[in-house]
């Protein structure tokens, strides 16, 4: 269990892990998305309440199944996007999330990537039955692709593990 490489978090990660901001399900969200899976050991749900006229995010919440960095990344991202319009929220990259947390160690970059991936999924979900703005790319961004790849890889690995286990 090997679980073995010491990982140094910044104190911001530990603080948000202990007292996460914006934690919990949002019953009246008008956009939401889930990224990752239990099998990945890494899953983030993002809930958004968006003002339909201004397209501003008036409230954001999250739920997370994952390590301390994953929880902190999702929490800080919800803080970063509150009050922003969707176009500006879309522009936030995983590196912005990492910087906001005081710099994630390389092995934890994917926590920031997954958080941003789930946010962008939620924004796409919001525009699913609305007219799409010009700034919303047709192609998946790096963070969205990563989330998809991780989900697919784990599906394959989990199936393989089930096959080989006695």
């Amino acid at each position, binding site marked *: 269990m090997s679980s073995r490489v010491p990982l140094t978090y910044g104190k911001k990660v530990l603080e948000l892990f202990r007292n996460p901001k914006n934690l919990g399900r949002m019953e009246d969200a008008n956009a939401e998305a889930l990224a990752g899976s239990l099998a990945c050991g890494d899953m983030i749900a993002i809930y958004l309440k968006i003002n339909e006229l201004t397209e501003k995010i008036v409230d954001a919440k999250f739920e997370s199944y994952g390590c301390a960095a*994953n929880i902190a990344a999702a929490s800080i991202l919800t803080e970063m996007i509150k009050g922003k319009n969707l176009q500006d929220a879309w522009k936030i990259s995983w590196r912005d999330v990492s910087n906001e947390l005081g710099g994630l160690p390389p092995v934890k970059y994917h926590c920031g990537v997954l958080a941003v991936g789930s946010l962008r999924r939620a924004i796409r979900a919001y525009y699913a039955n609305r007219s799409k703005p010009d700034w919303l790319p047709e192609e998946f961004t790096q963070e969205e692709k990563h989330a998809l790849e991780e989900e697919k890889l784990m599906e394959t690995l989990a199936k393989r593990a089930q096959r080989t286990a*006695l």
Partner: protein
Amino acid sequence: MTYSDLSKPIDELIKSHGLPEREVYLDHENSGLIIPEALRAIDDAYRLSGKGHPSITHLMGWISYQALYEATVNIALAINCSPEEIVYTHSGTEANNLAIMGSSELSSKRKKIIVSSIEHLSVIFPAERLEKHGFKVIKVPVDGEGFVNLDFLSEHVDKETLIVSVAAVNHEIGTIQDIKAIRDIVRDKDEGILIHTDACDALGRIPLDMKKLDVDLASFSSHKVYGPKGAGALYVREGIKLEPIVHGQLSTQKLWPGIENIPSIIGFSKAVEIMHRNFKENVLKMTGLRERLINGILNSIDHTLLNGPFGHKRAPDNVNVSFLYCEGEALTVELSTKGIYVSSGSACTSRVLEPSHVLLAIGRKYEEAHGSLLMKVSPFHTTLDVEYVLDALPGAVRRIRSLSPIKPPRKVI
């Protein structure tokens, strides 16, 4: 990154964590406490005999040699072998590497290496590395409790086999293997096959007698018997030929050049001596603490699974439980804030995306492995320590589960 760049965030992190009022250290898989007598022995060694180099011909050299030899005799007595059969390394990892890589160097005909699928990575990685040099690695499957499939082993052992390596006690799930049965299966096929056992987690937990066990190679680690870090040993049965895997000026050992870490070896030897002397009481005590911890967790927290066997075929110190719907790394951090130090088989605690290969090999699903905690009790823990952990765990698990978008079905603890 400069020293000051790195030290400030660590400093802040430790301050932000704060020192818990009560602490229970259960991460003896990774490392842990040192027996006070062993620490004193190291201190004495540095002051009295640690100055010299044991292969140099002056008084200080001879005093060092004497100290090293006495430490070796002590260890040899505890495991019932000759002092000549002990090769010091600086860790169990190095001892395992020497066994696998050192035996391969001399093999021109035998090109098959057989290991169990739940071996320590310091056995699996060297074996896999040898695949690049024409060796074939067979990983023997295990059952749901981690016991090696002996029929599979028997089918695959042949005249091509160089070495068979199975740990006497598994480091993660505490499975106590029947090494004698494995030895007989292998020797019945071909007496020329080397038998190695990683005994790092066995020493001090199960009776170990090299004459009775009758294997060719066995690895040991100092910090796993509450000795200092920086010392390990490989038992190499008389007559077994290995090649060194590290090269340089020899000191007193032909198989491991460079100066021996004499003070650490002396501390290692003292720890072995004490664990050997108190073996029965230690095992009884650890077994009692283990049972209380396992039963307490399984009875008070829903959606939990014990990893590894129940009862007498489990190492007396090993507790490994999967908490479903609860990510293990987050749980280790949560417990750390309560002064409880444990480790997890979650992928998040390592540098790879995959969780513990041991848990996957016993058929655990990915999500079950991600939620696992590994705890090892020691003879130096008290029942109060275990009760403290049992008091803190339900709340910690409840909080981590409360963060997740996927909640446990039915009753939530």
